[in-house]
């Protein structure tokens, strides 16, 4: 059996890899350079073998996979069984996961079974006196904490977009090792009965750019709503018209559409779009906030964005204090020519 110091869990569904998995491999390489030892990857589920082969392009020394029928659908228990067994067999000292839904869950479950602890959602990793020291935001990023796991193996999940994925090198290849399932179907209590896929569009946490709307999106005075709507229906209709403008700028930039909690609570857009303390924490390269005043809970979710643009009618809105560029004005007047100007400059 091979040995490795660091094992990286690759999060994938039917051959589609969540890109944060490769970022976790990038973080693993940086640590391995300082700690010594090799980096291995583990891939579970349907289509695990081609993904494990792909992992070699990111520079892992070894990859193992299990595509047993019991793992075709993601179920936490049989996945964690295989993960724990592989971690023990390889004698790894560090387990890394991307901070995805499955990654966080698997990190939590394997940590207690391996008699260790977990440090989720870290944004920085360093080696001090041979020990891995993690940096992670707490209180939704209002404070930054260092964290050390004193037990072995250390279990850590890396925040999406906080680490750089290595360049894929197609000349790097290798033969992944197949590992068996641990738990028989009869001993698995959960049954997956169906799926409903998320609506299309760019995922918020992976997005390079995000255009977000707030409560202000429903306030276009120039619109005349269709007759016969009650007050709430009119408000929603106005908001949807406003989000069309946001969607148009987003489409031009291949950006995701975000929203403030106020916009979600008012029923303008589904919760999946919410940015903030009780929504998604995002850090895109470009964040355009439209009609968002910038409550502290919203700021917590987006303040790590690289370039922030704020468009708001209220010159005193707190969002301007975070913004690189600010426009005090009516988003309904600014967004249509902005979309056109960007389209023109981007050659679309």
């Amino acid at each position: 059996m091979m040995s490795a110091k660091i094992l990286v869990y690759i999060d994938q569904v039917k051959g589609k890899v969540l890109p944060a998995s490769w970022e976790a491999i990038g973080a693993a390489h940086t640590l391995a350079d300082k700690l010594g030892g090799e980096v291995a990857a583990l891939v579970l589920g349907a289509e695990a073998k081609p993904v494990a082969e792909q992992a070699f392009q990111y520079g892992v020394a070894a990859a193992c996979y299990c595509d047993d029928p019991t793992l075709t659908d993601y179920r936490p228990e049989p996945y964690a069984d295989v993960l724990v067994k592989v971690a023990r067999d390889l004698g790894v000292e560090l387990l890394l996961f991307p901070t995805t839904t499955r990654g966080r869950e698997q990190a939590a479950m394997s940590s207690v079974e391996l008699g260790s602890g977990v440090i989720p959602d870290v944004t920085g990793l360093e080696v001090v006196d041979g020990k891995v020291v993690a940096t992670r935001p707490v209180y939704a990023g209002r404070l930054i904490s260092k964290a050390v796991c004193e037990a072995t193996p250390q279990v850590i999940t890396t925040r999406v977009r906080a680490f750089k994925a290595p360049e894929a090198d197609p000349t790097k290849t290798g033969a992944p090792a197949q590992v068996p399932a641990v738990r028989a179907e009869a001993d698995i209590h959960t049954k997956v009965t169906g799926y409903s896929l998320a609506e299309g569009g760019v995922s918020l946490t992976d997005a390079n750019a995000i255009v977000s709307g707030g409560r202000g999106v429903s306030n276009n005075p120039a619109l005349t709503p269709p007759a016969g709507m009650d007050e709430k229906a009119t408000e929603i209709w106005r908001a949807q018209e406003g989000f069309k403008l946001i969607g148009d700028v987003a489409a031009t930039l291949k950006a995701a559409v975000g929203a403030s909690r106020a916009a979600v609570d008012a029923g303008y857009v589904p919760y999946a779009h919410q940015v903030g303390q009780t929504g998604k924490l995002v850090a895109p390269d470009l964040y355009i906030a439209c009609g968002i005043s910038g409550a502290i809970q919203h700021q917590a979710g987006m303040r790590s964005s690289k370039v922030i643009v704020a468009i708001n009618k209220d010159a005193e809105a707190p969002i301007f204090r975070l913004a690189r560029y600010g426009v005090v004005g009516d988003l309904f007047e600014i967004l249509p020519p902005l979309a056109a100007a960007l389209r023109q400059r981007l050659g679309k």
Partner: protein
Amino acid sequence: MKIVVCIKQVPDSAAKMVVEGGQISWGDAPLVLNPWDEFAIEAALQLIEANGGELTVVSVGGESAKESLKTALAMGCNQAILVADPALQGADSQASAHVLAAVIQKIGGLDAAFFGKQAIDGDMGVTAAQTARLLGWPMLGLAASLKAADGKLLVEKAFEEGRQSVECPTPAVVSVSKDIGEPRYPSFMGIRKASRATIPVWNLAELGIAAPVSVVRWPEVTNPPAREVKTEMITGGSAQEIAEKLADKILEEKVL
């Protein structure tokens, strides 16, 4: 059905958190029931209302956590238990999971243990899955909708790609996402009842466990680096002019 919901008391989400002399301070901001846990309570209450049964709310914490337990009682939980022990000072998530697993076993005969997605102080989001693994119960993570039928829980779980429908026999651990719907406000009657409630306090000896070892250390907490941002206001004679200028500025940043 017999359900327990595990909650945490945290500083209010609007509190201004700062580090003073190496200590985290939230000034005079109130301590509240963790907002994510309100969704777990709401989901559990709906399940009890549809199927009958009782809901117990549990928190590991200090004496002050009784206030958050009372909020949960006022929302409709039937009884509350506080787990407090000096040995639990600074417990990490796995230590808390060990304690909660022991509480769940001591209560006994439960159909489910509910958790919020995460607590807004540490933003860890791991205790539910850790507790599930320690109990050997199936983990139904980030439930967006749920119901019970024929001794089974039927849950829609939220993932990056969409939702997965899962069913499993009870008992199970469930963590609840915000998709479940807005949590109810405590009723006037509920608040009156909660204010009179006596909340039993269990220590580790009563749970029959030794103090679990905490393995994660937090050597240093700091204020985040100030965001060095010079805001440039874009102005112009018309919306068209402002939009053109802004588009140029965005492209100059070379982030697209």
